[in-house]
Structures are given as C-alpha cells and as structure tokens.
C-alpha cells in the first residue's frame, strides 16, 4: 500500500451505509490514484468469496438444559423482582445503630486545662468534688477503725509489760498493712472508673504518699 487512503476506500466500498458525499470523494480520489484503483479491483471480490458460505443447521441440543440447571438457584421470573431481603439490610441497620450510640455517648469537655473526650454516661465521670468526698469519708472510716483497733488492743494487752507492748506494736503494724491493702484496692476501683482531670490523679498520688509515709 503506497496510498494512505486505500484502507478507508476499501472498507467504505464494503459498507452499504456510507454517505453519498463520502463515496463521491472516494470516486474523485480513485480517478487520480492508480494504487487505490488496483487495490479496489484486487480485493473487491473477497467478501463475495466469503459469502459463498452455506448456513449449516445445528445438531440437536438441549435448549432447556440451562433453564433447569439455573432455575435450581433462581428463576428468570424471580430475578426480575429483586428486592433486598432483611438479611441484606441487617448489617447496614446494625452499623447505623452503632454509629448513633457512639455519637450520643461521646462527650467533648473543654475546661481551663484543655479539652477532653469521654465516652459513657454522666454517672461514669468522676468529678474533683466527688473524689474529695470519697477521700474524706475514707479518712473518717480509717480513723474510726484505728480507734477501735487501739481500744481492742488495750483490752487484749492491758498489762504494760515489754512483751505486751511488742505484741501491741505488731498488731498495730498488721492493721496498718491491712489498711494500706484496702487503700490499694480502693484506688484500683477508682482507676477503673473514668475521671475527668489530671488533678484527680494528682490528688490520688498525694494521698497514697501521705498514707505510706512513716
């Protein structure tokens, strides 16, 4: 092929729907292009050769076989009405409910010491005032218990011998160790709860140091 127009002219020659003006343009070109004329003359008979094909009927085959095999899964009629089932909607509904729950239970608190995000109901938040009340009540209870221990010890070891003083001191030490263990357990419970400010932690730490001081 030496002319760039040859493929288009050959192709359009085999196309019944080519506009008349395009065909006219091709005729004008063919008048002056020997290469295109030769190619057209050479190839014009090829489609005709191919169209000598004689249609062959199909051998017998199972036309409804595919219907039987496919209908076990889903029929054409049911495919045309495809409404989502409850099972298909469930994950979406569950996700939406979870999202609503998260949004309604999340709280942003902005205070003088910065901001904080907390999750949960109001009662789960420990305020500084509540912490003070708790610590005061705990100190009162400890004081009362200590007084009771001393009275009990005085009744048990009323004689002021060196042995009884030693036993009394040992008893007091044991009770103090028990008290510290209870305090630890109390702090453990406090730590498991949500509290708002770093002050609360500082107060806890100060209290522990105070209790463990000799």
């Amino acid at each position: 092929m030496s002319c760039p127009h040859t493929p288009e002219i050959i192709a359009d020659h085999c196309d019944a729907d080519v506009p008349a003006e395009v065909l006219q343009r091709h005729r004008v070109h063919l008048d002056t292009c020997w290469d295109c004329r030769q190619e057209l003359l050479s190839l014009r008979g090829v489609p005709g050769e191919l169209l000598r094909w004689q249609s062959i009927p199909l051998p017998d085959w199972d036309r409804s076989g595919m219907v039987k095999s496919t209908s076990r899964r889903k029929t054409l009629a049911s495919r045309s009405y495809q409404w989502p089932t409850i099972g298909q909607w469930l994950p979406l509904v569950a996700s939406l409910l979870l999202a609503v729950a998260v949004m309604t239970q999340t709280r942003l608190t902005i205070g003088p010491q910065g901001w904080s995000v907390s999750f949960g109901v109001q009662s789960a938040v420990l305020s500084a005032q509540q912490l003070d009340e708790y610590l005061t009540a705990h100190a009162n209870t400890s004081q009362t218990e200590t007084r009771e221990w001393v009275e009990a010890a005085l009744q048990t070891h009323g004689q002021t011998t060196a042995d009884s003083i030693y036993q009394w001191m040992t008893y007091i030490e044991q009770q103090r160790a028990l008290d510290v263990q209870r305090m630890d357990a109390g702090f453990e419970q406090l730590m498991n709860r949500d509290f708002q400010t770093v002050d609360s932690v500082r107060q806890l730490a100060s209290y522990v140091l105070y209790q463990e001081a000799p």
Partner: protein
Amino acid sequence: MDQSDNQLIAAALAGSLPAWDALVRRHEMRVYNLGLRLLNNPDDALDLVQDVFLGVYRNLYRFRGESQFSTWLFRIVHNKAVDLIRRRQAGPEIEDWFEEGTPEPANNLPGPLDSYLETEMNQRISQFMSRLPPAQRLIVELKVFQALTFEEIAPLQDIPVNTAKTRFYTALKNLKAMIEAQT
C-alpha cells in the same frame, strides 16, 4: 402469528419455557454458523452456542428493550467468541498455510454432489478465517457476515473507526493471498 423477540423475552421472563425455546431457535443458527467460521470446529461452535445462550438466559432480565435483541445478543456473542478464540488459539500461523492445501475441483454445473461441494466450500472459508489473526478474523465476521457498520464494530472491539477499517483492509489482503494460493 410469529411473536416478536420482545414478546418472547417477556414471556420467558414470566417463566414460559416454550417462549424461551422459540427465542433460542430463532437465533441459534446465526450464532452456530458464526462459531463454525471463527472456530473451524463443530464441537467448539456448539460450545459457543451453549455458552452464549446460557449467558443470555442469566442476563435476560437486564435486557430493557432499548436496542434490538439481536444487537444485544451480538455483544454477548462477540465477547464469548473472543474468549473461546483465545482459549483455543486454533490453527497454525498464516505463513504455514501456504505450504498446504488442495486445489478446489472446478465444477460450475449443478449436480448431485453439490451438497458435498458446499461442505467443501464452507470448510475452505472457515480454514481461511481460522488462519487470520483473531482480531482480523472477528472484524471480517462482523463486517461481511453480520453486516455491521464500522461505527458499530469499533466500540465492540474497543478501537477507533479508522483502526477498524485498516484492520479490515489488512484482513482482506490476507484472505486474497490465501484464495490465490488455493487456486
């Protein structure tokens, strides 16, 4: 009175097996002969028919009637044929063909052996086709046998119209060379 394709489709979608059967019978021969020309093997051609109509059955509910059923069907046929050709890759390279082949007996008079000669003719044509590269083979099938325009062929093959025309021209040149070598 013959029902239209759309009527048969509606009935098939409603579950009518006879409607589906009639729809298949109306189009199966065209698909089968296309398969014979492209795949050059009756078993493969029947495989193509079954593949195509299984695809049609599974997707029939998607047919909206916006285009002709035959156009919609032909998209499925084209895709399935491309798949099968790729899988089979039937036939030796085009150059090998020139070393073989037997001359066709010259007989222009009608006679009792015409059916034999027709079979021979079909075999020759499908041999020619199978020796074309798959892309050229498909474009000849679409243009010559299915009478599609290049504007319809180009999107089917995902190529520009001019590329389709050049590919068709090259295919005709190859076929011409084969025909000349045969005679």
